């Protein structure tokens, strides 16, 4: 099978096959899957709707809870949440909840449903800095409560990491476009290419808006000191963005070394394979038993022929030759590649936003900062850093804002 970066790797269900999968669902009482979603999605309910052929009702259940229903369906590590809780595990394998959700949201899109509704305008305005998943969800929740929402995004297009980080074959641009256009339809104004702190100041935002919600995420890439200023080295953040912006049309060397073991590293390694790179070697600090990447991403990368070497830490680099040592047993690994991609984590870039960030997180629980008018959400807020958590934090931050400044303007 020829790999195509621009084509979704996983095939969606058809009407027939989704019924077969829904038929496997046990339709549990007090469904454990529904209790296991950080974003409060209710698979027990939407799968039952599918089972009884109420596809529009299923779409309402997904969408009313989650403004990123189509995206979560594709990128959520469901194996750690709803699918891990699935009772069907007691028989064979869990229901493919993500796959069914994707069918439902694709159905919603094809049927042209407009499920989310804006609330009656309450005269209050919120500015959101950043346009990633938590920003989009916060916007949806605020709009439903009657707020006017303006979104400031420093990149050319909205979507944050969804747009610039997750490869096209996992999350097509057009799916991100659809989710964003839903929010636009609800009334959100997007100001792309506007960097807060440069093109517009925080003070100006605070003056114009009742509240400012910072959802700037981790837009920067971490590196390791030994790799700095090395022309052979690129960060995962930069590489993935470059590939996605060019829709796979870039040339890459034929022997690439990836360093890192999270989902981002798997995306990099898999993307390299999609681009036709023959030798992709990923050296990972963690051993397989403590692996950070989801099982699905790991297996996907291995299936495409990525060599994954676990348990090694880089010791020194000489041009494009990296020497690793094993973390537990005496031994060395020397690898020479044409290119090295570092996927060792991301970091917040919040210097201009006046936020007190420690270890890439604000140093308090919840969402309101010491400045009562300023709130924070997404990766910068404490808690898990997945998309599904971003949705949850987006909702909670919106509710926190509503609690503090809620009610119609006097």
């Amino acid at each position, binding site marked *: 099978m020829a790999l195509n970066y621009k084509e979704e790797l996983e095939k969606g269900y058809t009407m*027939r096959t989704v019924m077969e999968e*829904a*038929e496997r669902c*046990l*339709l*549990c009482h*007090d469904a454990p899957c529904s209790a296991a979603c950080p974003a409060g999605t209710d698979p027990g309910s939407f799968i039952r709707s599918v089972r009884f052929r109420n596809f529009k009702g299923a779409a309402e259940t997904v969408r009313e809870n989650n403004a990123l229903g189509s995206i979560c369906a594709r990128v959520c590590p469901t194996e750690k949440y709803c699918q891990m809780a699935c009772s069907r595990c007691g028989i064979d394998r869990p229901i493919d909840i993500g796959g069914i959700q994707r069918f439902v949201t694709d159905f919603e899109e094809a049927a042209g449903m407009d499920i989310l509704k804006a609330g009656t305008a309450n005269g209050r305005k919120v500015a959101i800095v950043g346009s990633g998943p938590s920003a989009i969800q916060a916007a949806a929740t605020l709009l439903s409560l009657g707020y006017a929402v303006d979104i400031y995004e420093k990149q050319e297009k909205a979507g944050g990491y969804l747009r610039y980080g997750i490869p096209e074959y996992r999350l097509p641009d057009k799916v991100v476009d659809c989710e964003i256009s839903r929010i636009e339809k609800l009334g959100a104004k997007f100001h792309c290419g506007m960097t807060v702190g440069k093109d517009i100041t925080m003070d100006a935002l605070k003056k114009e808006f009742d509240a400012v919600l910072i959802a700037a995420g981790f837009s920067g890439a971490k590196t390791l000191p030994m790799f700095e200023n090395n022309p052979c080295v690129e960060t995962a953040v930069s590489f993935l963005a470059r590939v996605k912006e060019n829709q796979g049309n870039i040339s890459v060397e034929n022997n690439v070394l990836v360093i890192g073991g999270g989902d981002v590293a798997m995306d990099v390694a898999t993307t390299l394979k999609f681009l036709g790179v023959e030798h992709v070697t990923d050296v990972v600090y963690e051993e397989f038993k403590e692996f950070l990447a989801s099982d699905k991403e790991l297996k996907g990368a291995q299936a495409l022929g990525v060599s994954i070497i676990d348990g090694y830490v880089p010791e020194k680099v000489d041009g494009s030759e990296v020497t690793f040592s094993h973390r537990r047993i005496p031994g060395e690994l020397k690898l020479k590649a044409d290119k090295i991609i570092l996927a060792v984590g991301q970091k917040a870039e919040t210097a201009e936003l006046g936020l007190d960030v420690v270890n890439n997180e604000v140093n308090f629980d919840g969402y309101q900062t010491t400045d009562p008018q300023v709130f924070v959400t997404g990766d910068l807020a404490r808690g898990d850093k997945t998309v599904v958590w971003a949705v949850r934090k987006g909702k909670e931050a919106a509710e926190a804002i509503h609690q503090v400044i809620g009610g119609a303007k006097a």
Partner: protein
Amino acid sequence: MIKKDLSIDFLGVHFENPFCLSSSPVGNCYDMCKKAYETGWGGVVFKTIGPKHFVIDEVSPRFDKLDKEGTPFVGFKNMEQIAEHSLEENLADLKRLKEEFPDKVLIASIMGTNEQDWEELARLVDEAGADMIEMNLSCPQMTSHAMGSDVGANPELCRKYCAAVKRGSSLPMMAKMTPNVTDMVPVALASLEGGADGIAAINTVKSICNIDLDKKIGLPIVNGKSSISGYSGKAVKPIALRFLQQMRTDERLKDLAISGIGGIETWEDAAEFILVGASTLQVTTSIMQYGYRIVEDMKNGLMHYMEEQHVDHLKDLVGLANQNIIPAEELDRDYKVYPEIDEEKCIGCGRCYISCYDGAHQAIEWNEETRKVSCNKEKCVGCLLCRLVCPVGAISKGEVEMKPGRSGKPEDKVL
């Protein structure tokens, strides 16, 4: 591979196995029947041959199916009538089939509009070499009310036409019944009185399978309209078994020779028909869905079943269940059986709890913490709905308790 004798004699004709094509689209011409014989079917009921003057003109499309969840063909709707080939072609096909497959059973299905037609058709198929005649008194989608199930619902007409067929041929003959009656016995009796040697049952059930919700037309749509027509497949099996049982247990029809039809697709279905009194079996819908090859598993499965039952002759199984299906008022109502829940097998889905609460007697109790269930015997009536809905077979028949004041011992009960 297991080898058992599946042969059986039915109305004096020897079948190498009981599996036959029923008179339908699956036995429409020489080539089809040849392939069926070669695949291992014991007999063929050639698609119903009508009189020369009755012209068949079919609609397009002509089928529909009922799905449930991910399962297609739970039931099947057919609007096709009887054979559309000319009388001469059909007779030539019969002749050729009998010549080339002398050991296989060839049954000619016929349908006339009056006594003269029936008599003439019987004579012609006899001359062509058929081993047996089946009278189609039951097709529910004929374009003439003088034919098909309208005739089969009328005992007098059945008697008259059976007699006509017997005047035309002395071949063994069975009358094929329509299920579109409340009681099949009077029609079967009348047919036997008229001269039928046995009964084939059931033909299809009059139906509307689905309605197009946008166009508000039944399916299939024929230029904006549709019609009621015959329903078949797995969904009708229970209805067919009931009719067989009612005939076989009527005093006047004791030991009635039956060719069983209605939703047979596995050896288990076949065995069920045999146990309620069928000697031979006829199949269409599952062939239309899967092809003639399904006979291989039906035959092999039936052989294994005979082996398990220590039975060497298929006839020894015929009708064994008849005596065990009795009127509701005669059933033992002195005891109840409680469910026994296997906690090891239970996966905590709570389906038994939901069904017991919403569909029975609120006896299954649910532990929210552990997601485990237990049975409250005070409330349990022993209906065992819980056992039917459990997806992992964790609920079985457990303790038997006599109702207060009733005599008898729990251990004597056959569960």
